C-alpha cells in the first residue's frame, strides 16, 4: 500500500503486502489515483465478517440465477459458478486509453493478416511469416481461399489475454481469434456488484458495460449479406451441454435474437433457414459458438452432429454471414503470435502499442536449444491448446515434470513455444485468512464489423490459490469486476 494509504489503513488492509509484484489497486505508490484511493478506503472500512457475508450472498445469487458453467465429474454434468471475488480490479482512464488503442491496433493487424492469408499471401511471399508455419497449421482453412468477407472483418469478436509484469507494463499473452468466451461474466459481475456493493461503486465514475449486446447485434447485422435491409441474426450454440451455454443464452437474450442449435437450421438452395412453428424463416447472419470443424459436416468433420449440412456453401455464396469467419484460428496460434509485432509494422507501418512476451519458437533450432538450456526458468506451452492445459511452469516444476517436458519437447518441438516467466500482477482478494494478494490477468473484448469497438475493461480472472499463476476457470480460477474509471 502506498505510504499515504498505508498510514491510514487501520481496517482490512492493515498488514496487506503485495510483495515484489505490481498491485492493481495500490499501483506504483506515488502516482496514486484519487478514485482508486477512495475505493481502497471504502473497502478498508468494511468489517471482515460483513464483507465475507456479503461476498457469500453474491456467490449464492450467481448459483441461484444459474450463472454457471457445466463441468463433468463422474459422468454427471454439474453446474458450477465461476467463483467471484468482490474486490474490483481498477483500470485508470489513462491506462485504458493505452489498452484500447493497443487492442484496436492488434485487431486491425490480425484482420489484415487473415485477409492477406486467404487472398494473395503477400506476407508469406515477403517472408514476414514462415509460410510452412501458417499453411501447415491445422486451423488454416484452404476452403476460405479467395472468399471475401464484408469489411475485411474476419475476427469479429476478439479476446486479448493481457498480463501485467512487475514493472506495471501490460503485455499480450495471447489472442483469442476463434470463439473467445467470458464476456457474459463481465456484464453479470457488474450487475452483481451494483446490487451487492452499491456503496462501493457509488460516485466512483465507472464506465458502463451494458451496451455490449446492442453493439454485438449491430456488428453482426453489418456482417450479413449487404443487400438485406433488416437482417435476421441468430446465435448458433452447441446446446445446453456446452460448458459456455450460459453465455450463449445471455448473449442471445441481450441481443433479442433466437438461440439456435444445428438441428434448428436447414439449408435450401444455399440459403439458411430456421425451423419455426410456422415453417422456415430466413437467417442472414450467425454468431456461431461452434468451432470450424463442427460447422458443416459436408465441408468439415463429417461426423459433426452440431453443425448444418450445406452451411459453408451458403457462406461461400455470400448468402449468410458467419462471425467469426471460418479459418481465424490460424491467427491465434501461439507461434504465429510471435510474429504479430512484425505483422503490425508490415501492414500498418506502426510500432506495436502493446508489448508482447518474448517468445522462443521451439520449431526453430535456436529456439529449441535456448528452451532446453533454460528449461527451469521458462514457461513452456503447447501452441494449439487453450484453457491453460499442457503448460509447464519451469520455476515451479519438479525435476520429474521438467524431464517429462524435455521429452515432449524433443519428441515434437514444433508443438511448443517457451516464454520467460512473467511476474503476474496481483490484486487484493478476499480469502479465508483476510485480504491477500492474488495474481490476475485481463481479457478485453473487441467487436469488429465496419469498425472496431472495445468494451471498456474486460474479464479479470484471478488465480484464487495462493501463489497460483494459472487463472483459467478450468484450473481453479475465479473472476472480478473490472472498473475502468471515466
Amino acid at each position, binding site marked *: 500500500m502506498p505510504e499515504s494509504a498505508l498510514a491510514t489503513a487501520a481496517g482490512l488492509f492493515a498488514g496487506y503486502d503485495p510483495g515484489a509484484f505490481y498491485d492493481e489497486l495500490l499501483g506504483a505508490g506515488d502516482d496514486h489515483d484519487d478514485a482508486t484511493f477512495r475505493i481502497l478506503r471504502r473497502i478498508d472500512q468494511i468489517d471482515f465478517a460483513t464483507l465475507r457475508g456479503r461476498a457469500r450472498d453474491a456467490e449464492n445469487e450467481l448459483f441461484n440465477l*444459474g450463472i454457471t458453467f457445466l463441468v463433468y465429474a463422474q459422468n454427471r454434468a454439474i453446474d458450477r459458478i465461476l467463483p467471484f471475488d468482490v474486490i474490483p480490479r481498477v483500470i485508470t482512464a489513462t491506462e485504458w486509453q493505452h489498452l484500447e488503442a493497443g487492442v484496436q491496433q492488434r485487431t486491425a493487424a490480425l484482420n489484415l493478416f487473415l485477409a492477406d492469408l486467404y487472398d494473395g499471401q503477400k506476407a508469406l511471399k515477403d517472408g514476414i511469416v514462415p509460410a510452412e508455419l501458417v499453411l501447415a497449421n491445422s486451423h488454416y482453412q484452404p476452403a476460405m481461399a479467395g472468399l471475401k468477407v464484408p469489411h475485411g472483418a474476419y475476427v469479429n469478436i476478439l479476446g486479448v489475454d493481457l498480463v501485467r509484469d512487475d514493472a506495471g507494463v501490460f503485455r499480450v499473452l495471447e489472442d483469442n481469434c476463434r470463439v473467445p468466451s467470458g464476456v457474459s461474466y463481465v456484464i453479470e459481475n457488474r450487475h452483481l456488484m451494483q446490487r451487492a456493493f452499491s456503496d462501493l461503486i457509488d460516485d466512483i465514475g465507472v464506465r458502463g458495460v451494458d451496451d455490449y449486446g446492442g453493439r454485438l447485434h449491430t456488428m453482426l447485422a453489418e456482417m450479413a449479406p449487404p443487400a438485406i435491409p433488416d437482417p435476421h441474426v441468430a446465435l448458433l450454440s452447441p446446446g445446453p451441454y456446452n460448458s459456455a451455454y450460459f453465455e450463449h443464452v445471455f448473449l442471445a437474450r441481450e441481443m433479442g435474437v433466437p438461440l439456435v442449435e444445428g438441428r434448428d437450421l436447414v439449408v435450401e438452395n444455399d440459403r439458411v*433457414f430456421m425451423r*419455426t*412453428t410456422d415453417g422456415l424463416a430466413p437467417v442472414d447472419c450467425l454468431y456461431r459458438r461452434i468451432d470450424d470443424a463442427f460447422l458443416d459436416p459436408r465441408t468439415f468433420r463429417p461426423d459433426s452432429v452440431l453443425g448444418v449440412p450445406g452451411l459453408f456453401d451458403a457462406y461461400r455464396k455470400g448468402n449468410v454471414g458467419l462471425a467469426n469467419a471460418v479459418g481465424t484460428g490460424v491467427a491465434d496460434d501461439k507461434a504465429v503470435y510471435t510474429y504479430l509485432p512484425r505483422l503490425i509494422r508490415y501492414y500498418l507501418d506502426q510500432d506495436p502499442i502493446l508489448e508482447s512476451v518474448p517468445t522462443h519458437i521451439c520449431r526453430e533450432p535456436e529456439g529449441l536449444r535456448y528452451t532446453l538450456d533454460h528449461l527451469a526458468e521458462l514457461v513452456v506451452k503447447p501452441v494449439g491448446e487453450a484453457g491453460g492445459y499442457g503448460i509447464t511452469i519451469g520455476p515451479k516444476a519438479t525435476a520429474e515434470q521438467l524431464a517429462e517436458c524435455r521429452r515432449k519437447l524433443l519428441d515434437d518441438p514444433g508443438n511448443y513455444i517457451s516464454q520467460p516467466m512473467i511476474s503476474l500482477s496481483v490484486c487484493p482478494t478476499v480469502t479465508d485468512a483476510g485480504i491477500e494478494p492474488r495474481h490476475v490477468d485481463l481479457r478485453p473484448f473487441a467487436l469488429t464489423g465496419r469498425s472496431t469497438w472495445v468494451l471498456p475493461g474486460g474479464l479479470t480472472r484471478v488465480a484464487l490459490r495462493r501463489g497460483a499463476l494459472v487463472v483459467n476457470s478450468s484450473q481453479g480460477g475465479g473472476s472480478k469486476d473490472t472498473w475502468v474509471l471515466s
Partner: protein
Amino acid sequence: MVRPPPPLLARLAEAAFWLARYVERTENLARLIDINETFARDSRGACNWSSIVALNADDMRFYARHAAASEATVLRFYLLDGDNPTSILSSIRAARESARSLRPHISTELWGQLNTFYNWVLALTESDIALPRISRLCGRIRESCQTHAGIADGTLYRDQAWTFYQLGRWLERADQTTRLLDIKYHTLLPSVDDIGSPLDASQWNAVLRSASAYHAFRRAFPRDLEPGQVAEFLLFDSRFPRSVSACVHNVATELGELRRRFHLRHTSQVMESVDELTSLLAERQIDQVLQHGLHEFLDVLQGRFAGLTGLLSERFFDYAPTRGGVAMRETAG
C-alpha cells in the same frame, strides 16, 4: 416502433409446452400425496397408497422395484427416485431442462426460481420424506409450483412461447383431473350397484381436496355430497379452474391465439380436434355419463388429450421443411 412478433423455433415451442406440463404434473402429484396422507385414511386409519401408483399408470415400473405399495416405498418412488420418470425429482428436472433451452425466452426470475426449486428437491433425503414432515414438504412443493405459475404469469413476454406454455398447462391439468377422478371414483365405487351405498364422506372429501376443489364444490353444491355430483363438478363446472371443461375451453382459446395473433398456418386441424372435444363435453349430462360408464368416458377424454398432444407435435414441433413453404420475410419479422 414495435416490431412484428418474431418467429418461434419449433424446438422452443415444444420446450415451453413441456415446461408447463411438468410443473403442472408436479403440483398435482404433490397435492395428491399430501391429501392421501392426510385425508384418505380408511376407518382403521390405514392409507391406500397403491391408488397413487395406479393413477399414474406406474404399476409395472413400481412393482419391478418394490414388493408392495407402502407409504415408505411410494413416497420414495414419487419424491426421491431420479430413475423413476414420473417422480417429482424427474419432473422438476425435466421442467428445468426445458427451461434451460428456453432461457433466452423466459425471465431471469422464472429460471432462478425453478433452478432454486430443483436444487432443493435434489437435496431431499429419506429423513425429509418421513411421515411427520410429508405434509409440510408437499405443501412446499405445491407452493413452489404455484410460485412458478405466478412468476410465469407476471413476467413472461406474451409471445408464441407463452401460448404454447399455456397450452401445456391446460392440457396437463385436464388430463390430471380425469386421472384423479377415474382412479378415486372406482376405488371408492367399484360397481354401479354401489351407488347409493353408505358413503365414507371423508373419502369424497379427499377426492375434492386432491383437486383443490372442496370449497368450490361447496359453493356449487352447498348441502349434498354425492359421487355423481363430485364427478359432475370436476368434469363440467366451467367456473372451476381445474375442471375438464374449463381447461378444454382454455386450450381452445390459446389455439385461437396461435391463429389470430401469430397467423400460424397449421392451426386448423388442431382447432377441429379441440372443437370436437368441446362438443363432446357440452353435449353430455352427468347422468348419461354415469349410465354409459364414467371410466369409458374418461378413457375417451384421455385418448383425445393424447391425440391433441400428438397433433401439436406434428403440426408445430416437428416441423419438416418438406411439408410447407417458406415463411414470408414480412410475416417472419
